[in-house]
């Protein structure tokens, strides 16, 4: 299994906050929060373009390993505060969701 540290480095992600000392076992991409809650799993990388505070709540409840904000989206200030408080790991990237998924797939399946 790849570690989040290594994966983030390989994918060129920018770290915003939260611990990166986790193992990654999969990836889920989606923006509708109930779908994410229904399908994302513990240890997944969650790729989304949503950046509001509810994203942090969902990440915490599903226990995904991290949230990756695609397309250069930045975390809302109140969401960042919540992420830091709950120790939810967040990254940003200028890449599209598709590009991030293909990259993640390459390293997760290695």
């Amino acid at each position, binding site marked *: 299994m790849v570690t989040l540290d290594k994966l983030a480095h390989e994918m060129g992600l920018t770290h915003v906050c939260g611990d990166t000392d986790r193992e990654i076992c999969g990836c889920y991409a989606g*923006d*509708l*929060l*109930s*779908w994410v*809650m*229904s399908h994302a799993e*513990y240890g997944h990388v969650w790729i989304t373009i*949503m950046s*509001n*505070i*509810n*994203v942090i*709540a*969902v990440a*915490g*409840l*599903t*226990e995904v390993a991290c949230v990756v904000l695609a397309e250069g989206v930045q975390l809302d200030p*109140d969401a960042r505060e919540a992420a830091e408080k*709950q120790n939810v790991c967040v990254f940003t990237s200028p890449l599209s969701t598709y590009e991030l998924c293909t990259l993640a797939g390459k390293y997760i399946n290695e």
Partner: protein
Amino acid sequence: MGENIRFHFDVDGDDFSSAGAASVEVKKQLRKLGFSPDVIRRVAIAMYEGEINMVIHADGGTVDVEVGDEDITMILSDRGPGIADVEKAMQEGFSTARDNIRSLGFGAGMGLPNMKKYTDDMKIETALGLGTTVIMKVNV
């Protein structure tokens, strides 16, 4: 376990930033009590969906959680408009949420189906104009 442990929360209406606070707190408490990650995840997600529903549709409400020897019961009560057609509301993809709710990532019509999916038993008591109570149980 001896006497059942109970939690009570008030959920503010129209406040998406604090929605989820009750679920996060319950999750923390269940972890302290030593429940399995699967049980904790199911309770937390079902409760969060319920909280969000109360914020979107009912101007808030209350959540009561009771931790028993055999199951965890969540009772979510509101004084909102009630659900006109429960069967329809239970269908995946059916939603009456406004567009501004969708822009926050909600309103996919998956809330009640997720609550059913993650619990072992779910009952909805609703009356138009009076409110809705959802009772969910997760076996431990």
